[in-house]
């Protein structure tokens, strides 16, 4: 990673926040910073890297913004001097050109990008763009949409911020918790998009999931909350299995078959420490993250698949279903009950359950196969295969289906 790439990756959000605090012009700030990065790509290789890379970028971007403000004032036939008001105005915050910024400015930016008045997908994309500094084409790739679609989504979100007057501000103490929950949701949405994409050739895009965790960590460092802590623990635990989820030929490897040596055990230890230090959940949302993190922790700490404490996991899923009932939670609970008490008990929980997508028929097919009903299992798996739009997962379902056709295959399982 070059010095420039490092600055962009680690400092982008701070630089955006710093310039926004001074100029309050989202439309100018981002373009100016992008211009500054372009200029750095040209100048740094020949002139050498500046001692303070972020200060160099801020100074260059600030010059561009002032040029634009002057041009706007001229175009509006106003007194050109008016445009330089921003120059003369005492700068807010403590910072001059050192590239430092008070953390509150970054928190303002995080909260602005994840404002509840923005559509959730737009908020996720905008957070990755403005806070994390990920280029729009990369965000498009991570969300599996075309570059023009993603560019339009980000533009719409920025336009809404400017037009509707979404503030670059930290809300009062009574509202900040609610707003941080939205940031968490925004991060989790991006994480989920990376962890279990619905379509396309790659089973998971670990990079997006990693960036989502980074967004949550940055926010948690600025304003710690039990909700964010539980969410970070949950995401890190799931993320720690990323390498083991994909086999040598890009095929899906399910939890029981995963090589536990390929899990990132340092990350698991870190997540367990976060979970232990998070304290009790202060809201149902926080509690639902906490229970999911505890479930993930049971898997992460089981020495082998056979030694998984399914009895504990079924209890936690039952508690989770009380707090946030949904078909997806019911399906996950049925899987755990099937492990703890057998496939028939799991199937009983799925009776008369409705859920769109391939997941429900896939689980039903698997449990029917284990219960020895190969015929019903084939029907369910066929349905799942028809509904599945992720190439890797569909191949897994197809091989499971093919295994049922082999004579004696179900007998072995039962």
């Amino acid at each position, binding site marked *: 990673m070059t010095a420039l790439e490092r600055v962009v990756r680690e400092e982008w959000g701070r630089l955006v926040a710093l310039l926004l605090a001074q100029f309050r012009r989202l439309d100018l700030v981002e373009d100016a910073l992008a211009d500054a990065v372009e200029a750095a790509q040209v100048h740094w290789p020949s002139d050498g890297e500046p001692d303070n890379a972020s200060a160099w970028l801020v100074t260059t971007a600030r010059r561009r913004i002032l040029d634009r403000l002057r041009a706007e004032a001229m175009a509006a036939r106003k007194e050109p001097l008016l445009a330089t008001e921003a120059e003369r105005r005492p700068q807010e915050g403590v910072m001059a050109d050192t590239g430092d910024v008070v953390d509150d400015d970054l928190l303002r930016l995080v909260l602005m990008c994840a404002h509840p008045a923005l559509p959730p997908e737009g908020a996720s994309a905008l957070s990755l763009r403005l806070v994390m500094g990920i280029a729009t084409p990369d965000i498009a790739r991570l969300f599996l949409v075309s570059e023009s679609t993603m560019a339009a989504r980000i533009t719409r979100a920025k336009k809404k911020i400017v037009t509707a*007057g979404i503030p670059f501000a930290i809300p009062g103490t009574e509202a900040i918790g609610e707003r941080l929950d939205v940031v968490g949701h925004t991060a989790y949405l991006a994480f989920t998009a990376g962890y279990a994409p619905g379509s396309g050739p790659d089973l998971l895009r670990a990079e997006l999931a990693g960036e989502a965790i980074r967004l949550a960590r940055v926010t948690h460092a600025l304003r710690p909350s039990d909700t964010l802590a539980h969410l970070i623990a949950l995401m890190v635990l799931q993320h720690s299995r990323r390498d083991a989820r994909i086999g040598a030929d890009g095929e899906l490897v399910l939890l029981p078959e995963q090589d536990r040596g390929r899990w990132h055990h340092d990350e698991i230890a870190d997540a367990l420490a976060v979970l232990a230090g998070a304290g009790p959940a202060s809201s149902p949302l926080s509690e639902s993250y906490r229970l999911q993190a505890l479930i993930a922790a049971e898997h992460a700490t089981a020495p082998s698949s056979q030694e998984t404490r399914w009895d504990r996991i079924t209890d936690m899923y039952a508690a989770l279903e009380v707090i946030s009932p949904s078909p997806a939670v019911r399906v996950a609970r049925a899987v755990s009950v099937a492990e703890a008490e057998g496939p028939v008990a799991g199937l009983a929980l799925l009776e008369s359950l409705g859920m769109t997508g391939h997941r429900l028929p896939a689980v039903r097919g698997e449990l029917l196969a284990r219960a020895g009903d190969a015929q019903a299992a084939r029907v369910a798996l066929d349905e799942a295969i028809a509904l599945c739009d992720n190439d890797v997962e569909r191949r897994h379902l197809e091989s499971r289906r093919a295994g049922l056709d082999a004579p004696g295959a179900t007998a072995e399982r039962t």
Partner: protein
Amino acid sequence: MKRYLVLIAYEPGDWEAAGPEERQIYIDGHQAFHDFVDEHGRRISGAALAGADTATTVRQSAVTDGPFAETAEMIGGYYDVELPDLDHAITAARLLPPSYAVEIRSVIDLDAAGERVG
């Protein structure tokens, strides 16, 4: 300061059907909204509107009977206010009677030539 049009929609007949105590909830909600806006910005205007069944819609040269859209809820009143930002507008809107659906729209400044200003 930004200027917002706060559009208030509710089920027709809610107010007429309300008893004295329920009506007081409506009155208190509007008073809380007034107080908040006066403290943080400025009330430019506001009014309750006659029922959508008496509305007139003008499209090009055609004048038609009725509101823009037939919905169960109708625009029953509005406030034109100036407040620092959307968060203040949302806080103010939440003070209004809870049975309302409130739409907040930014007012755009146009210059004499019809170009957007700011």
